[in-house]
């Protein structure tokens, strides 16, 4: 076992690596080695990811109710059906609202927490842990705490208790879509669960900003506070912000757990994944339409991702190392 430390290896490496590229002509062909490393993963990916996607694509052109080996080809009917189906189109609307709430709020909250924690001199680790800890909690558990206690519609729910102290009537947070209080429940649950993770990303990025930039700005007369934040910190965080927003969007598209558990008996407030779950695995077992819906969703995700990439320049970071 080589227990040599990084330092030792690095110094011996610089001594040896100087002669011209040593890689060529060493044992084994790189092509074989490449497949040796990536083979197991790629085979699994082919079977458990690509094959289902292709199967899904195939199913989407057939009338496939209660069967996954259908024989009645229906062309684009499933797509037409889904695109004109109120439930499905409504679920896209639900997603859009959800993304419009959750992406900016998580971005702002995690960045805000990162700025706070990063400036601390005492108890920094403690506060970081507090904000990070919810990352360990599952969406199911959080949904349960939110639904059964904090935002329970009955009198002894925490929010209703607190509001009751101020004389506010009980609010049915999750039962009644009018007014849509359920968004508050869903968004706060996810904010609590995921902000800590993105805070860690922002802290890491903040610590990578060279001090010289702030010193130079101070010399140039930039006011500390908002000005340095706006003209130094924020631009320096651009790459991280882009990645965070992208991750948040993809995560929002895939939202399932908290909607499924918080709104289990409702027909409204269903994001696409929940809608498709009921469509394909519910009573109708319509795999054809379900697959068509899933593929429409995929196309949308790709489009949004690429668009966001174009706007914010994702992918440039790839060549940084």
């Amino acid at each position: 076992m080589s227990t040599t430390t990084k330092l030792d290896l690095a110094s011996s490496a610089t001594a040896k690596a100087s002669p011209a590229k040593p890689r060529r002509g060493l044992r084994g062909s790189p092509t074989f080695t490449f497949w040796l490393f990536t083979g197991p993963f790629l085979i699994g990916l082919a079977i458990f990811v690509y094959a289902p996607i292709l199967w899904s694509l195939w199913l989407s052109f057939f009338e496939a109710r209660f069967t996954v080996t259908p024989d009645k080809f229906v062309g684009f009917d499933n797509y037409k059906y889904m695109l004109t189906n109120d439930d499905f189109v409504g679920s896209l609307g639900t997603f859009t609202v959800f993304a419009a709430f959750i992406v900016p709020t998580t971005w702002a909250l995690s960045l805000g927490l990162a700025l706070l924690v990063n400036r601390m001199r005492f108890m920094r680790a403690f506060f970081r842990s507090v904000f990070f800890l919810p990352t360990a909690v599952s969406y199911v558990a959080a949904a349960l705490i939110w639904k059964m206690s904090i935002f329970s519609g009955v009198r002894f729910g925490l929010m209703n208790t607190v509001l009751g102290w101020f004389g506010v009537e009980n609010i049915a947070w999750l039962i009644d879509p009018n007014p849509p209080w359920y968004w508050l429940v869903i968004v706060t649950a996810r904010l609590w669960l995921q902000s800590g993770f993105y805070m860690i990303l922002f802290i890491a990025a903040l610590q990578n900003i060279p001090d010289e930039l702030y010193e130079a700005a101070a010399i140039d007369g930039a006011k500390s506070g908002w000005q340095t934040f706006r003209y130094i910190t924020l631009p320096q965080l651009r790459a991280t912000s882009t990645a965070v927003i992208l991750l948040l969007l993809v995560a929002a598209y895939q939202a399932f757990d908290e909607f499924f558990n918080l709104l289990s008996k409702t027909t409204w407030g269903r994001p696409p994944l929940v809608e498709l779950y009921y469509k394909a695995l519910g009573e109708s077992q319509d795999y054809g339409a379900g697959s068509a819906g899933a593929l429409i969703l995929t196309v949308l995700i790709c489009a949004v991702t690429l668009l966001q990439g174009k706007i914010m320049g994702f992918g440039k970071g790839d060549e940084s190392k």
Partner: protein
Amino acid sequence: MTTTIPKVRKSAPRSDTPSRVRRGGVMSSTGLYIATGVAAFLFLIPFYILVRNALSTDAEITGENWKFFPTDIQWGNISELFSDETVPFAQSLWNSAVVATLHTVGVLLVCSLAGYGLARIPYKHANKVFYAVLGTLMVPTAVTFVPSFVLVSSLGWVDTYRGLIIPGLFSGFTCFLFRQYFLGFPKELEEAARMDGLGYWGAYWRVVVPNSLNFFAAMATITFIAGWNAFLWPLVIGQDPSSWTVQVALSSYMTNQTVVFHMIFMATAVSILPLVFVFLFLQRWLVQGIAQTGIKG
């Protein structure tokens, strides 16, 4: 912009140089701690609720006046939870432990090898393969879970550990993270190892992995948490209550006809506890790992 802007924000953060010029005096430092303290208080409320309800009687939870702490701590709720016949909670905990552990080992092995191959081994189509992996990140679970379910059930894997674990091993995202990490791994180390006569394979196991244990620990923690907390796939695969994971068991409490509050909250608390321990002990590696993943671009 030369207009003076009133100082509404906390001054920009400095990387760990507390000794240097601190912007803002005592006041803003107090403000900093107050703001953070309020946020931390809010973040801790759900944990407080969880523990309070788990150790109370139903009468106190649903009582007329809000009780901040249970009058008598009900430790008996724990044994009540495990002797409950309606939901096989102990079995579901065991299932989650097995599934999350094997999931973690499998994911780390398969995805780290692939990530290394994609990052480091010169192969002219490596980029194309990488994009094929990257593409899967954009495909929502919805697209694959129905056909995956059919595939798994035709293999006879419904209600089995295999069915719960194997389809989830091939995570494009984890592979991506490993690739990004290995791109930043000092090349000199491997080149030295190969000069000493090791192939890629040998260099990987003898030099790269032992020097990447921090990152592996971080990925292991993240993967374990994700495996323990996974819900959709276990919900689809776990048809029989004996193969439920703890998340599916929790979810079933919420749809039960009768609601026994203290038991539901005790179950939730017990399901979170192992992770909180994992988390607190491994947090250092986790934070380092996330910081290094290269998400920062």
